[in-house]
């Protein structure tokens, strides 16, 4: 079920340059069905900014009804979220979308999780759940530069974690795609900038690959057709998927990136 609710902010801190970790207590945590789902956040009570902001659920704890989001402060909306303080209420709609499928890898198999920048957060709960299930989990986390690195230790607890930076200031220099080549895996889960997703999709046509997409959104629930992408396997151009309600996670090839 999708709920709209005033969640309560439990904590908020800057964990890397302009990267914030926000923990919220909300009833809707009970309804989260898979890692990779997201919430749609109203950033002001007024009319400006008007639209909600989609942010992935990075991890959650159903018992405590808490979830953690990790976001980058970039524009007006995320700047307003960054100003919120513990104890304050935050208007959230969710859980939205379909998350990563866990049943595509079995115990003993290897899952490779590849995240780029702000695409990393939704992979964290996935990593936790896969590891708990007994899957071997490997992580490649790409950041622009040293100051942007976050959650390396957290991911490391679940399995090998390789960090890359575009400028080589931390970890290995270069693209996550270069590293994927070095590793074997049964299933790959990824989230990050479109060019990265595209490269991964094209590089492993015969593998099980799941990608989480981003698109500008209106409603966030599938009604407005703002976030549509073309179905990859359809002959006619009129076949489509909605990132908000059919995604944000798709099987590679399911949609055109």
């Amino acid at each position, binding site marked *: 079920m999708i709920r709209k609710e005033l969640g309560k902010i439990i904590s908020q801190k800057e964990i890397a340059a302009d990267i914030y970790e926000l923990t919220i207590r909300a009833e809707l945590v009970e309804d989260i069905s898979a890692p990779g789902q997201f919430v749609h956040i109203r950033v002001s009570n007024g009319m*400006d900014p008007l639209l909600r902001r989609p942010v992935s659920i990075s991890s959650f704890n159903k018992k405590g009804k808490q979830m953690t989001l990790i976001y980058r402060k970039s524009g007006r909306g995320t700047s307003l979220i960054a100003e919120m303080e513990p104890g304050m209420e935050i208007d959230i709609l969710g859980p939205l979308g379909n998350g990563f499928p866990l049943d595509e890898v079995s115990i003993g198999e290897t899952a490779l999780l590849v995240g780029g920048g702000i695409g990393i957060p939704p992979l964290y709960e996935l990593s936790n759940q896969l590891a708990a299930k007994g899957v071997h989990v490997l992580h490649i986390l790409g950041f622009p530069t040293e100051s942007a690195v976050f959650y390396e230790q957290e991911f490391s607890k679940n399995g090998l974690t390789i960090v890359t930076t575009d400028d080589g200031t931390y970890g290995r220099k270069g693209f996550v795609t270069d590293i994927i080549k070095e590793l074997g895996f049964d299933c790959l889960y990824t989230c990050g900038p479109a060019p990265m997703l595209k490269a991964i999709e094209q590089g492993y046509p015969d593998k099980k690959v799941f990608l989480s997409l981003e698109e500008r959104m209106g409603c966030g629930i599938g009604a407005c057709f703002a976030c549509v992408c073309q179905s990859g396997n359809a002959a006619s151009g009129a076949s489509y998927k909605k990132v908000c*309600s059919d995604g944000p996670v798709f099987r590679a090839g399911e949609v055109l990136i």
Partner: protein
Amino acid sequence: MNRLNVELPGLHLNNPIMPASGCFGFGREYSRLYDLTRLGAIMIKATTVEPRFGNPTPRVAETSAGMLNAIGLQNPGLEKVIAEELPWLSQFAVPIIANVAGSVEEDYITVAKEISRQANVQALELNISCPNVKTGGIAFGTIPEVARQLTKKVKEVSEVPVYVKLSPNVTNIVEMAKAVEAGGADGITMINTLVGMRLDLKTGKPILANLTGGLSGPAVKPVAIRMIYEVSQVVSIPIIGMGGVQSAEDVIEFFYAGASAVAVGTANFVDPFVCPTIIDELPCVLDRLGYEHISECTGRSWKKDGQLAYHRA
């Protein structure tokens, strides 16, 4: 006593609040959030003869107190709407207003003829004002004589009353309104979106793949109010008002301007429960302002005292 019911051509509404076309799809998503029979009516997404994928993404951009959209009339096409969407919607006892779009006259006629024959379609909304479609559309929405002709032809084939949706992107909205009334329109819905654009600071290029988009939301409300105020004084058919409605107070303002019912678009994205919330709040607002029935508010901005219904306050 129901203080919110409204009688309009073809429409017996329990309350005057309905989601605006394109902001509510065909109702499936919102039906998971609340009972659709609470709504006065539903204006479904524009339907065209053939399925349309619409424009490339990004399709939406935010603006101050508003948003731009360039969906491009994405819809599954007449056949599927009739075969799948309308039958699904028929489980709810709520009037459906079908939004009819096209590029050439025949398109409108084909869709209007077929869709108006569906059992739960109580009225048509002739969309001659979508700013996001490159071909045809423009002339229908901006040249009075063309609009009159189209209205007339659609009326001839429609089994249900026809409301014509006006574009605000014109020099003279009154002329357009008179033209569609002369063409036989049973009502007017207004306003559609204002044409606008946003540019990306980094690239310098438009944010929307379609370049321009339609501006909606609270930013446009003063324009909508002004146009409804002007039009309602010169036509004798009812107006369903829209453009930036977010609250029960906004609804009253649209009634004052001259509307007899109100559609809510963009606000559904801000708060998916906005329609039932407004419906719940309206009686309190009527109490506060001293009205027995919401219909007393229609046209209050320009009606002479003698024309006004009883007002307690």
